[in-house]
Each structure stands twice: as C-alpha cells, then as structure tokens.
C-alpha cells in the first residue's frame, strides 16, 4: 500500500471518478432534464411551430428546424450547466458535504473546484453529443460540420458554469438559484438569437445579448454548422467565452479556498 499526494493534474480526474461513480448509479434521474426536455423543444418548436415558418433570409435559407437545432444545442448546454453549477455544488458544500470530505484528503480546495468543473464539462460534451445524434435522427441537421457545434456549445455552457460555480461557493442558502434560472437563464435563452434573429429585437437589447455566453455560443454553433463562420469573429467569440471560464476559475479558486479552508 502506498498513499501519496496525487499530482495537481491527476487530482481533478480522481474527483471526476467520484462523480462518475455517482452518475453510474443515478444517470436515469438526469435523463429527463438533460435529453427529454430539449427533444421536446426540438419537436414543439422545430417540427410543430417550425412548420409554420417560411424559410427565408431570417432562417439563413434553411428550414426552421434546421435553423433552430444548433442554437438549441447551445441553449441545452447552458440550461444543463445551471443545475450542475448551483444546486449540485451547493449540496456538496452544505448538504452532502462531500467537498469537506475531499479536502480532508491530500486534495486541495482548488483541485476540488477543478474536478467539479471538469465533470460539468464532460457532462455538457456528452449531453450535447447525444442531443446532436437525436437531432440528426429527427432530420434537424443538414451538415456534418454540426459536429463542431458540440465543443462550442460545451464552451458556452462552461462560460456560464464556471462563474456560476464560483457564485454558488459564496452562498449560505440556496435562495437565489431559482431566480438565476428565471431571470438570467430564461431571458438568456429566449432573447439571444436562438429562436429568432436578434435583429427583431429593439437595438438597446443587443448589447445585453452580446454579454451573454449563449449569444456567442449560438453564433459559433450556427456559423460552424452552416459554414458562415469567419475566422476573426470566431476567435473573438471563443476568446470572450474562454475569458468567462478563466474568470470563473480564478474567482472559484478564491471562494473555494475561503469556504473550505476556514
């Protein structure tokens, strides 16, 4: 038997293994919110409502279902990130206190954070990948380039998740989480160009939309899928989303240490 301090790079993987152990037992509970809900959206908005929408300039010349699918991928990733970054993280601090158990081992608070974020990223990548397959089966995907929408959607999800996890680490009560969903995430999914072009909204809303990770993610995912993405804007979107992730990680490290090493 030899115990040792695992390297800062391996430590998050061990935390991921912990999450995976949980997921193997409990994945069924996550299926409905992660897959069924977006599929219902795709059917209702894309197939049902979409049948009433004419292809045209607004839809980039694509059927509405095809126009919607890459955006819905991003929206799904961000929505899935919400629960994983608020309730699940709060529970690990307060209810299950599994973070407290972890930091009594050689693992540090920062490594606990890294493991949590890595796990959320994995969930977002696999979740959006499965969603993409379903969208393909429903005839909502026109181009193999849509594969690129998966990492872009996951990046947008993480750009929301990392700051949200940091915020959660400062909470003593879970009161604000529902408000985040209703007043931040819902508008962010409805008014950022996913279901209809941003140009339909008053001009003063545009800058607000540009602040959201959803808008950048949709620009990337849709642009990649339809082959309209230019390099420079793409780099800009990725840089902005990466900056949000980095900000979240930096704040998260500070708040995790403050919370777990008192």
């Amino acid at each position, binding site marked *: 038997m030899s*115990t040792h*301090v695992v390297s800062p790079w*391996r430590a998050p993987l061990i935390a991921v293994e912990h999450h995976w*152990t949980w997921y193997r*037992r409990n994945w069924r509970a996550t299926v409905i919110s992660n897959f069924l809900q977006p599929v219902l959206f795709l059917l209702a908005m894309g197939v049902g409502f979409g049948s009433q929408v004419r292809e045209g300039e607004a839809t980039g010349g694509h059927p509405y279902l095809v126009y919607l699918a890459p955006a819905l991928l991003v929206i799904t990733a961000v929505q899935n990130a919400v629960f994983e970054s608020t309730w699940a993280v709060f529970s690990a601090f307060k209810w299950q206190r599994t973070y407290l158990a972890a*930091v*009594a*081992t050689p693992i540090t608070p920062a490594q606990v954070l890294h493991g949590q974020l890595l796990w959320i990223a994995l969930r977002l990548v696999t979740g959006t990948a499965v969603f993409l397959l379903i969208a393909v089966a429903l005839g909502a995907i026109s181009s193999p380039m849509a594969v690129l929408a998966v990492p872009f959607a996951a990046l947008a999800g993480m750009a929301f998740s990392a700051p949200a996890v940091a915020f959660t680490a400062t909470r003593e009560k879970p009161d604000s989480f529902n408000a985040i969903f209703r007043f931040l995430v819902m508008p962010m999914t409805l008014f950022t160009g996913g279901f209809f072009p941003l140009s339909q909204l008053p001009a003063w809303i545009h800058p607000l939309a540009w602040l959201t990770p959803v808008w950048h993610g949709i620009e990337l995912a849709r642009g990649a899928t339809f082959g309209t993405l230019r390099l420079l804007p793409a780099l800009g979107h990725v840089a902005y989303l990466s900056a949000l992730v980095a900000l979240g990680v930096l704040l998260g490290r500070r708040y995790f240490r403050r919370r777990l090493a008192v």
Partner: protein
Amino acid sequence: MSDPAATVTSVTSTLVNAKGLTKHFGSFEAVRGIDVEVSRGEAFGFLGPNGAGKSSTMRMVSCVSPRTGGELRVLGLDPDTDGPRIRARIGVVPQQDNLDTELTVRQNLQVYGRYFGLSRSAVRAKATELMEFAQLSDRADAEVEPLSGGMKRRLTIARSLVNDPDLLLLDEPTTGLDPQARHLLWDRLFRLKQSGVTLIITTHYMDEAEQLCDRLVVMDGGRIAAEGSPGELIRRYSTKEVLELRFPPGEQSGDEVRDLAERIEVLPDRVLLYTSDGEAALAAAHARGVRPVSSLVRRSTLEDVFLRLTGRTLVD
C-alpha cells in the same frame, strides 16, 4: 522510500507539537494560545464543553483550517506549507458525517481511497478489509442514506482508515449514538490503539475519555485548563471518593456537613462531599443528625474534574 516526510517522522516520536496555537474567526478567538504535544502510539483526548475550541484545534491539526498564530507541527511538518503531505498520512473523523450518502458503503470507501492516490485494486482490497473491521460487510452494496447513525459513524471511521494513517483524529466520534453503537465503536477504537495507531479524540463524554485516553487536556474558553492522565487529573482536581447526599429540593444547606469533606458543592437537590473516605463522611453526617432522602458513595470520575474546571453553567 525517499519521501522526506517518512524520514522526518521515523526519527521523531512527537506526532503533534503545538506552541501558543491560536485560531481567530473575525474578532472571535476560538483558540487562545494552547501548547499540546502528542507522542506516537498515544491516545490523546481533548475534553471541554461546547465552544471550548476543541473542534477548531482538531481542524487545524488535520490541516484543513489554517492557524491564526503560534507554532504547529504535525508529523514533523508545517501544515501551512505541507498540508497535502500531512493529510496523506492522517485519518479524519469529522464531527458531522460527510459520507456520500447516494453511494454504497463499498463505493464510499473506494472513492475515498482513490483521493489518497491508491490504485483501483488497492482500494478494492482495502474496502473489503475495512467493511469487515467496521462490521458492515453485509451492507457492502447498500446505499448509505438509509443506514442507521451508528452504521454511518462506523463507516466514517472505516473510511478514515483507508490510507492506513499514522495519526487518527476523531471529533466527537460517538455523539448521538445509542449505548450499543458506542460500545462497538469504543471496541474498534481500542483495537486501533492496540495496533499502534495514534489517536486524538475530542469528546464531552467523560466515560469515553476515561476508557480511551492515555492523556488528555481539558479545554475551556479556548484555553487549556488542565492536562494529565485521567487518573492524575482526578487526583489533582478531585478527591478519591464523592459522597452524594440527596435532599428534597430546597431543604439542604450544606452548612452542617461543610467541615466533613475537603470540598463540598451544594446543588438544588443534592450536596456533594469530596472526600477520601465517603463512608466515614456519611457516618459522621448521620451522627450529626443529617437525614438525607438517600445517599451514595462513589469514586471520583473525570466528570467531577470536568465540572470543577469548566463550571456547571451551560455554555451554549
């Protein structure tokens, strides 16, 4: 092995060394400068009422809570700079269980072992061994959530042993358990002690401290009020025996027996006489015409020491 930590502690027999250790939370001083030394193989106890600073001390020693001031060495290393290396070789049983209640008993042990860098095959073997030790083998693949408090506590203790720790820190290991579960836990802790594991225990159960601890300190208000073996403390702060005279509430004054003992304590329904010979004191009291409802001669316990040092007033 070339691990310098191993070399350091193989030559030193002092596993924990604290000098003037303090812990502040904002303006609140939880620990106000304590000196503690724990040697290898010892079972050391922190006794004290709620809020005495026991848990804060434990959390500093277990390297999850940075100290505010003073010196602290655990396994010869400084927690400020070598926290992970120290934590790799200690076991921690926190006051509140923090098991992953949505995993099975076995999974809890395996997952935890992995955090210590153990291989998958090593944690599999270790989990089986520890479930045996904690009498949880028949619950191996049951989810933790519905288990009883005693079982969860046993699992927490089993989990703390997954890295074969040199030092085991137990924060109120048996609080809230029924007598059967407490005795089973004591038995397990006693076995660990026999096998050479150094134990540090906080408790406010005096019988627990007397059963398990070779040496202990009584903490009060963030300071150490007394230190010694249970026997020494009883000799120093109490008498060999205690005579308890029970009266109807309000009918005792203690005045008529005050000179029969080294020290007396008047409670609402009882007078306690601290003396080396309880029977003689009782006979003398009877001879003076003192007629209690009932009387009891018992030997002094740590509880008498504890109450003398920390007072009878509720602190929380």
